[in-house]
């Protein structure tokens, strides 16, 4: 197991190097010029050159790449070009707000959607299955933005059930988060239920299901006990791989509901050409994805004894 973990950690190094290189090239060649974004129309050439030098943007791409790698190793991305804030503080605050926004509805949603999916799978082919397929496919076809704008307008403004937007630290955030949570759960429910249903239906074709029926188990017991336990492996994969996305928040929700999460920080960073923000969040996301993938493999070994990590 230890050997496996060491090998996987070492495998992340070329991935991070590649991600860093792509981010740097994309930013340098395609993105906004952060110096011009910072200094605006009245800047002299002298001021532009000076700031470019201060931010190491005048150096060759290779040197900039080495500086970037050093930042990755030391986890010190410095300050935001735009505001001068320490990125570590910004990311910590952003991650707190983003996780407040995404964690509760994500896990509550998974439990709820699992329950719905297993019911739909249990009654496959019935009117429940057909009707829910129609509803969830229709729901998935609607843009995220439409849900946000409609619910904000209808539930918060017209009906006045929720605050229109805002955020406060701690438990005071809850009143502001309930509507975003509902939207988050609704947006994710369609794809999750469709995925989980498919997983359950795939399992129904497995040999152990026939064996369970042969032993005289009821359809409900087969579905809710035997199939559900075995279906947890792909569901676990889905759940763990989504964790980095939770850290990044849901930027459209964050923007419309004024939740100061990492998604909103990233969008502002892209708009302002704030390279340290883009660099820091992209690499952190890449590291999170790699670690989560490793975590999935390790969890597989525990959930399914047939999986041999060192094999």
């Amino acid at each position, binding site marked *: 197991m230890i050997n496996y973990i060491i090998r996987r950690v070492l495998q992340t190094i070329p991935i991070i190097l590649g991600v860093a290189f792509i981010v740097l090239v994309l930013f340098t060649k395609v993105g*906004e010029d952060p110096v011009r974004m910072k200094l*605006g*129309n009245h800047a002299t050439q002298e001021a532009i050159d000076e700031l470019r030098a201060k931010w190491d943007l005048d150096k060759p791409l290779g040197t900039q790449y080495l500086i970037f790698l050093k930042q990755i190793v030391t986890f010190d991305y410095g300050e935001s070009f735009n505001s001068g*804030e320490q990125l570590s503080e910004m990311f910590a605050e952003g991650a707190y707000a983003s996780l407040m926004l995404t964690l509760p509805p994500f896990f509550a949603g998974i439990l709820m959607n699992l329950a719905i999916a297993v019911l739909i799978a249990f009654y496959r082919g019935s009117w429940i299955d057909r009707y829910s397929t129609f509803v969830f496919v229709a729901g998935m076809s609607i843009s995220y933005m439409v849900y946000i704008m409609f619910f904000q307008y209808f539930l918060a403004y017209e009906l006045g059930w929720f605050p229109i937007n805002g*955020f406060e630290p701690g438990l005071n955030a809850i009143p502001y988060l309930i509507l975003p949570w509902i939207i988050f759960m609704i947006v994710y429910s369609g794809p999750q239920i469709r995925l989980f249903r498919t997983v359950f239906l795939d399992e129904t074709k497995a040999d152990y299901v026939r064996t369970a029926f042969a032993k005289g188990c009821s359809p409900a017991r087969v579905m809710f006990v035997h199939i559900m336990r075995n279906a947890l492996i792909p569901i676990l994969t889905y759940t763990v791989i989504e964790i980095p996305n939770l850290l990044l928040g849901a930027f459209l929700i964050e923007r419309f509901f004024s939740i100061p999460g990492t998604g909103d920080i990233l969008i502002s960073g892209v708009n302002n050409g704030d390279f340290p923000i883009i660099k820091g969040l992209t690499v952190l996301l890449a590291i999170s994805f790699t670690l989560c993938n490793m975590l999935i493999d390790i969890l597989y070994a525990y959930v399914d004894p047939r999986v041999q990590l060192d094999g």
Partner: protein
Amino acid sequence: MKFQNRWLAFLCLLGSFAVQPGCTKKKVEESKVSSTGSAEAPLKIFYHYRRSEEKSLDPVKSFDEASRQHIRSLFDTLLEYNYLKRPYELAPLLLTKMPEKQADGVTYLFTLKQGVKFHDHAVFPEGNGREMTADDVIFSLKRFADANANRLSYTLIQGLVVGMDEFRELSKKQPQGFDYAKHEISGLKKLDNYRFTITFTRDSPLNFYPLAFEGTSVVPKEAVAKYGDDFDKNPVGTGAFYLKSYSRRGTTVLAKNPNYHGTYPTEGAPGDKEAGLLEAAGKKLPFVDEIHLPLIEETQPAMLKFKKGEVAWVAIGRDDYIAMVDRVPTTDGTKKFKLKPEYEKYALYYVPSLATNFMRFGMKDPVVGKNKALRQAIAYAMSADGFIELMMNGRGNRSESIVPNEIAGSTRETGSTWYTQNIEMAKKKLAEAGYPDGKGLPALTVEYRSAIKDQRQQYEFMRNELAKANIKLEGNFQSFSNFLKKTDEGNYQIADAGWNADYPDAENFYSLFYSKNKAPGPNTSNFENAQFDAAYEKARHMMNGPERYKLFAEMDAILKEEVPMILISNHYVMGVLQPNVRNFKRNLLEEYPYKYVDLAR
């Protein structure tokens, strides 16, 4: 049975969500009540919002609207723009009167108000704000000139004050520990605690505008010394409000400075008295206790909060304009607007902006830059009126000169006119340019600063208009910094352009075509005309009046003949206010008039 139990559990789960909203509403209302003070002495809170994150609350490190939104309330400058009078004119703010010219004709005496105190703050002994003096003003002007502190806005004062440019050059040689006490600006002289003089390089009305610019706000040196780069997180000034709490991505709260020195203006523009804008004349500022400024970057939540009464003032964009505003038919060609009946309880304002929207020609380009008749053909082919109606829903006036109508020296004073669409003339000029019926003329590229819907629609409109005269266009939609780079290099044929007044003087707009300001300066057309330059240099430092306007008319005529641009519009700034907002007049140079506004109980 098991199945039914699971359904019940699921319904309970859904039910638990349905119960939540009631609790939510109560909690929100409670928190709002507590934030507005006790029943006996409720606080007056002006709820507004920020549309983007500010770059810095340090006056010398900011040059953006979001920062200005705070800085104009936290700090004071020597001069300000009269809140009510139009056209815009300077008025004393930290001074007792406007600067007085001395015998040499270039030195001015500045007399400070006595008893103006900095905010109470831990940086001062016992936390009590000390009195602001001439030393603070001189320190702040030195800091504005210090290249290590101010990278953004020094060009606004460059060349105006004797010895200031030299001071800046010295500061560049000492990136660390540049000591202001050891280096003087020869044009700044302290006479006593309340009086000082500034000697300018020449006498000019332009000398005073930088003294109303927020970058020259007066700051206490002990706070700058203590906090250094973190001064922006601990701003201490003499402004009408102090920073009560700060959250860059949350809600920032500004609270009333009880010791503020300012009073509400006693004079206004015609109609202000009838509009109730002089009822508070002479009263001590500010009137509201707190300003709450959450960050709301999207227009929908801002407008919904306004309609719910949670925001006092909101700007109206294109979509909200269609939903909320009607045009009032007029016979004299003026533009009038009113709110639709369902929104009549609110107050609508609309004022012409201090900006001109136009398209530039790249004069270095071998096709358009060297062919005056071609540029004239394009000017004849473009319909500014059509653009304003279709692209702006009529929310603007056609520009007849580069100077917006609200600034002295515009077409009101000069009588200048610009091209009106005439396709026959366009075709004639095109033939004169060597391209009869457009034959042989390659498609011309128009540079745009982004790829957003508005820019693409504007391009489609222009492409369609010019096609009527057989002129083909191609749009190049790019990032803003790439656009700036391209225009700075003068490497383009036609580019989207616009200029918002840095200060309310026509010179600011004519400088866009002065040959010594060629790219990367503001003359990114790289226009060069000796006659224009001569008139500009002559008019530049003159006081407004018939003689200066005559020179402006001369420059307008040259621009019309040489066509380094295509003039389009001067748009309206529009918004709505809650019915209880008092003393609000949209002042485009004092954009956030928090210290003047009041709320009716």
